[in-house]
């Protein structure tokens, strides 16, 4: 009986997603529709879609649980995930749109006139995309196991199938509507239960979330200077990593022009800010009611039943389950689009007609991380997301920032930076995942290797600049012309060929 609201919620969200997706199918006809919704998405709708796509399981379930367990130091995750959009707005948004490219590899190739850079970027997009898809599928398995007592493989398979159908049939145009819908669904699914629970809490006269553990209100990691390093490295990875996430970047090409791209980003900042006010409410209420969830990720799912037992609690649980499921679906869809876009352009379109190529690429983009999620059910959800951010910050962030603002970037410099940043961050976190502790240097080695962004990002920037300087004679001849296109407002009538 207790599984009924959750089951209803999951079925409803899946049906709504498929219905909106198939409605979008009727208005999607061309390849341009599939990849960039023919570049006609207005800022309001596009911002909702970006918000819907971006707020993954980590935001919907993970943050509240981490806050309950570790306290205020975890507030840096939502702050970084939001501030990343400010950095993106300031450095990247409008020029990226004006570059007129479909994907990150397209941008790199157009800017640097090099197939080699393009291939390195394509590999990185697929790697980051799959790294980020894996925890979405695993989170779905955990959620359905908690809400419905389903076996762990059910969640990944259901999410994978729904994503496959909605992305493969409608492409970017239909997914825009699906994701805009899912932002508002997620916000409602977190806001309404939070409001009800707060009213109940005010009536219950339970004591406030008093900080019984002294450091619950310390916004720093443990261990003095090591905590400070960890916090700053996390801040750097999230502030700079957002612009390098493939599913975020691909949405910017759907704006009509550079100005709209900026306004979209500003709206995203506001939408994320509103959403991230809610997880601390769940954490505080969880503390006030002494919640001790089995896994910290399930706090949001278990809190309603704990505070209001009975029918109301069941209905509220159904709501948050719906929101969580929407979170898996929308983030996975966005990542599947981004990965399959790159696979289509670089692999399948050489052998197959346009739409078939996109659909085959989508199947591959979903099947690989799905298989990995089924084979490795305990990969560590939060770690994989952190790795994705660190890798994106150490590779695509320097490429975008230098490519947009510095005429002197060369193809050799870009490849050097991508390899140094990518290898450094992947090796560091891979080491941590595999081993976890060396015990060298009072634990400093583990801390520095465990949060690589603070050194891998500057290293990647340095490699790009130094190697570009050394190969300055091979700077692409059209660099100035390309920068003109990136920075000139559309109202100025230029030759934009």
């Amino acid at each position, binding site marked *: 009986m207790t599984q009924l609201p959750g089951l209803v919620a999951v079925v409803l969200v899946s049906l709504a997603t498929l219905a909106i997706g198939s409605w979008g199918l009727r208005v999607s006809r061309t390849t341009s529709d599939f990849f960039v919704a023919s570049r006609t998405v207005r800022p309001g709708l596009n911002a909702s879609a970006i918000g819907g796509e971006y707020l993954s399981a980590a935001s919907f379930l993970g943050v509240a649980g981490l806050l309950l367990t570790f306290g*205020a130091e975890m*507030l*840096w995750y939502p702050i970084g995930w*939001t501030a990343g959009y400010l950095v993106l707005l300031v450095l990247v948004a409008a020029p990226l749109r004006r570059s007129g490219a479909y994907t990150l590899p397209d941008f790199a190739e157009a800017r640097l006139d090099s197939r080699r850079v393009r291939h390195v970027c394509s590999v990185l997009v697929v790697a980051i995309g799959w790294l980020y898809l894996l925890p979405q599928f695993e989170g779905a398995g955990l959620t359905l196991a908690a809400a419905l007592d389903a076996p762990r493989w059910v969640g990944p398979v259901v999410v994978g199938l729904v994503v496959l159908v909605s992305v493969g049939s409608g492409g970017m145009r239909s997914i825009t509507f699906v994701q805009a819908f899912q932002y508002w669904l997620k916000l409602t699914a977190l806001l309404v239960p939070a409001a009800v629970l707060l009213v109940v809490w005010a009536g219950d006269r339970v004591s406030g979330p008093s900080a019984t553990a002294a*450091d619950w209100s310390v916004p720093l990691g443990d261990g003095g200077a090591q905590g400070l390093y960890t916090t700053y490295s996390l801040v750097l990875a999230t502030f700079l990593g957002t612009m390098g996430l493939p599913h975020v970047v691909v949405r910017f090409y759907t704006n009509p022009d550079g100005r709209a791209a900026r306004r979209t980003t500003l709206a995203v900042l506001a939408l994320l800010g509103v959403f991230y006010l809610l997880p*601390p409410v769940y954490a505080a209420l969880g503390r006030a009611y002494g919640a001790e969830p089995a896994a910290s990720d399930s706090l949001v799912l278990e809190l309603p039943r704990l505070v209001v037992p009975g029918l109301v609690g069941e209905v509220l649980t159904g709501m948050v389950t719906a929101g969580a499921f929407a979170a898996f679906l929308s983030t996975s869809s966005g990542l599947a689009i981004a990965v399959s876009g790159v696979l289509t352009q670089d692999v399948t379109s050489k052998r197959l007609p346009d739409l078939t190529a996109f659909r085959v690429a989508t199947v591959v983009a979903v099947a690989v991380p799905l298989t990995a999620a089924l084979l490795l059910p305990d990969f560590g959800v939060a770690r994989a997301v952190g790795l994705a951010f660190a890798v994106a910050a150490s590779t695509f962030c320097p490429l975008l920032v230098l490519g947009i603002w510095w005429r002197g970037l060369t193809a050799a410099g870009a490849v050097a930076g991508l390899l140094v940043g990518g290898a450094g961050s992947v090796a560091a976190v891979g080491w941590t995942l595999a081993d976890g502790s060396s015990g060298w240097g009072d634990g400093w080695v583990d801390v520095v290797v465990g949060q690589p962004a603070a050194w891998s990002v500057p290293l990647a920037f340095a490699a790009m600049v130094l190697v570009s300087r050394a190969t300055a004679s091979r700077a692409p001849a059209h660099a100035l012309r390309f920068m003109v296109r990136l*920075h000139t*407002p559309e109202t*100025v*009538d230029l030759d934009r060929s």
Partner: protein
Amino acid sequence: MTEQGSPRRVRVTGPDRRARPIPRTGDIDEASPLGGVYLGSLLREQLWLAARVLGLLTVTVGGLPLLFFLAPGLDDVRVAGVPVAWLVLGVLVYPWLVLLGWHYVRRAERNERDFAELMGEVER
């Protein structure tokens, strides 16, 4: 951008006889030294603006961990019963980020308008 639907009604008129400024975009299209100067001025303006906004972000939000590290007494400060860390990091940061972004968008659009006017085009 409005390709769908029926074509828009267009009023047919004779050629515009008023003197029209000659657009200076040719210099930019041909990547002449003068074009480089025009673009350089826009690029510097926008980069300087970006640096100012990012600097503000670094000092305010980026300074918070250091502040709490150097002044551990702040952990116990409460405003209306809420620990100040939760208030600042959980609530106040977000309107501040939106304000910074809003400021940036306004100034960036103004820079672009100035540039468009310099190019001899009036904004549509």
